[in-house]
């Protein structure tokens, strides 16, 4: 903090000559993190890349201000650090001593942010314009939330299963009931004497030769 203030004080005499200085009301700070974004495939930041940056800025301003022909010479860069951070100011194409207001520059950058990022294979987080927050992408909301679809599938399967099981047990119990009444009818028809039921072979069951029965043997 102290550093920056000292730096500014030293630069004040130079203000008259240089329009681009850190902390200027017309300047933006840019911070680039190539290694973070690209890892092994990181390219080296050199003057050519800086030229591309200035060209991209000019493009952004041209797209925003339809008609005004910005050139690379209108973008002035200063204070480059090994971090790869620097400050830049934009001058008007008609009058090179007039600097563009921050608001105009910001809107231009915002409009073409994706294109600028694409030129450097970077993202909003790795190509930072300090004080310009990245625009947030609107989340894609499907018409039916996907969880309801899965829920519907599961409930449908479970419901079908429950109905199937209930119906099958109803059918089974009805069959058992029918079989029972059928057997009872058959026994009735064979005739019951002495209160004894007959077996399926027909005839009267002779209790004399039965064993383990509950009735008094004859």
């Amino acid at each position, binding site marked *: *903090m*102290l*550093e920056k203030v000292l730096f500014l004080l030293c630069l004040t005499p130079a203000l008259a000559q240089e329009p681009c200085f850190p902390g200027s009301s017309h300047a933006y700070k840019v*911070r680039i*993190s*190539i*290694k*973070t974004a690209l890892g092994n495939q990181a390219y080296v930041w050199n003057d050519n890349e800086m030229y591309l940056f200035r060209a991209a800025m000019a493009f952004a301003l041209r797209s925003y201000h339809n008609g005004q022909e910005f050139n690379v010479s209108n973008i002035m860069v200063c204070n480059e*650090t*090994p*971090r*790869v*951070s620097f400050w830049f100011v934009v001058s008007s194409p008609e009058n090179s001593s007039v600097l563009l207001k921050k608001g105009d520059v910001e809107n231009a950058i915002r409009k073409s942010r994706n294109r600028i990022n694409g030129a450097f294979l970077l993202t909003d987080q790795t190509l930072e314009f300090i004080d310009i927050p990245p625009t*947030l992408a*609107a*989340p894609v909301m499907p018409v039916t939330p*996907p*969880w*309801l*679809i*899965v*829920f519907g599938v*599961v*409930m449908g399967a*479970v*419901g079908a*299963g*429950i109905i199937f*099981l*209930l119906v099958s*047990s109803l059918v089974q*119990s009805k069959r058992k009931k029918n079989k029972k009444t059928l057997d009872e009818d058959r026994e009735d028809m064979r005739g019951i004497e002495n209160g004894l039921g007959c077996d399926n072979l027909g005839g009267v069951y002779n209790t004399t030769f039965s064993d383990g029965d509950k009735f008094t043997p004859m």
Partner: protein
Amino acid sequence: MKLKIRLPNPGLDDRIPSHKDLEDMEKQEAADRPQWDNKAQYLLTCVGFCVGLGNVWRFPYLCQSHGGGAFMIPFLFLLIFEGIPLLYLEFAIGQRLRKGSVAVWTAINPYLAGVGIASMCVSFLVGMYYNTIIAWVMWYFFHSFQSPLPWSQCPLNDNRTGLVSECKRSSSIDYFWYRETLNTSETIDVSGGLQWWMVLCLFCAWAVLYICCIRGIETTGKAVYITSTLPYVVLTIFLIRGLTLKGSVDGIKFLFTPRVKELMNPSVWLDAGAQVFYSFSLAFGGLISFSSYNPVHNNCEQDAVIIGIINGCTSVFAATVVYSIIGFRATEQFNTCLNENILMLLNAFDLAEGTITETNYDEMLRMLNSTTSGFDTIQGLDLSTCNLETFLSDGVEGTGLAFIVFTEAITKMPVSPLWSVLFFIMLFCLGLSTMFGAIEGVVVPLQDLKIFPKKCPKEALSGIVCLLSFMIALIFCLRSGNYWLVLFDSYAGSVPLLIIAFCEMTAVAYIYGIDRFNKDIEFMIGHKPNIFWQAMWRLVSPLIVFVIFVFYFITKVNAELTYISWNPNSANFPILEILTYPKWVYIVIFILAGVPSLLIPGVALFQLFQRCCCKRNMYK
């Protein structure tokens, strides 16, 4: 010195089938009592009942916080001296008397019917809140079929200028759990309304449970082939995946590094005992019921030992998997923390990228600190201290582990939806197979108590139980539902179970008679239980359960009744706020813990009263 205490128990022989009756029943293959299709079904059902969510989210936390690898010593000790004997006892008594829990205790002595009824009540209460956890698991499962996972990003606020404030201040994982899933209120007093999405998930959970339990073990026996085996498959997959992730071995090392000094602390032994006890799902009545469907000469001693060992091994296996994932997560958090610091330093000093890396961070920091201007800059930066140990010991248990820690770790893995689906299917199966035992512990006693007419089909009875539980469990779908669930978990499933288990052991050892029990086991499996089992049943296991009960009771009674709440308006947000319960919670606690426990003496007194009245009426 043998303890030959045996309390008088007239009429026991009339109430229970004799050995000859059992042989006849075996030959006849009585059709009115359900049977297992094969031994595998029985073992899988018991393993499924015992192995539950606690093995995944309680044991790893206990293991790590109570001495790491050294925790195995008390755990194994209590497994052998408390868990397996109790398991053997429940299996043997169920197989011998061939009835559900209420009928078994009534047959031993009519005054003991309260033990069975208390088991039924506890099974009912625990079943209600346990299935709600399954409903939460299903909610996360339904949301796992999208990429990116919904809990990996914060939603935007209304005017699309930034993220929702609550989410930004905490994290997307916390926000999804506390706001979008639970929509939790600030205190338990503010009940809020029913959350329709939770009601749908709860209905789905009970419907799935109903379809699996609709005909008793006829249907659960088929379901367990999947619900009991799938968790092991998924755990193995996660272990292999976890070991390939960076940092997982640190997690496993952290878990198992023994700290033998911790064993001096008695609470380690008590927690181990409690964990073994609850992990085996004893005293719910479900195990007695499941064993009663076995053939008479089934080797229940072997079963008890096998299931005990499987349960113990599953706990250790699950702990390994969980901590490999926690190790990965902690390493990721550590790296993120470190990289943030590095970025701040690079930006502040305008150094080129790559000058400060993870390896030379410390020495670079020292070098930058050595100049006065550097020191001042660094002070102004507010760097956070990054310590891997801190991230690893961010020990979470319970729902926090599953829905916050693990879900966060999953978002960092490639192909997250797949891991999420697998993880929640595993939790679902673990919970569902435990619910089978709980439902069995409610439905069969209801049949024994003859509350419903005998002609009532099993489908209708299960349906009534599921519907009733669903309607009462709607309380957990309120905005304050999570606080109610924690209340149920702390009181319904803790103290009453210990009392019931203690009563079970004393009943079998001293009222049924250990001699008779030994002869029964000799009849069933061919040899008498040896001196080890005798000592356990008569003395050691009841003593251990008694000690744990006293400890638990004293802790609960002395503890300040507080709970933690999620309050976005609190000063320390996102740290959870500690609040005290309101006064009416005492009534709820009494209903949850007091009523089942008091049923045991209550029903005994009621029976006594009935007999006295009857006798008086007879003599009038």
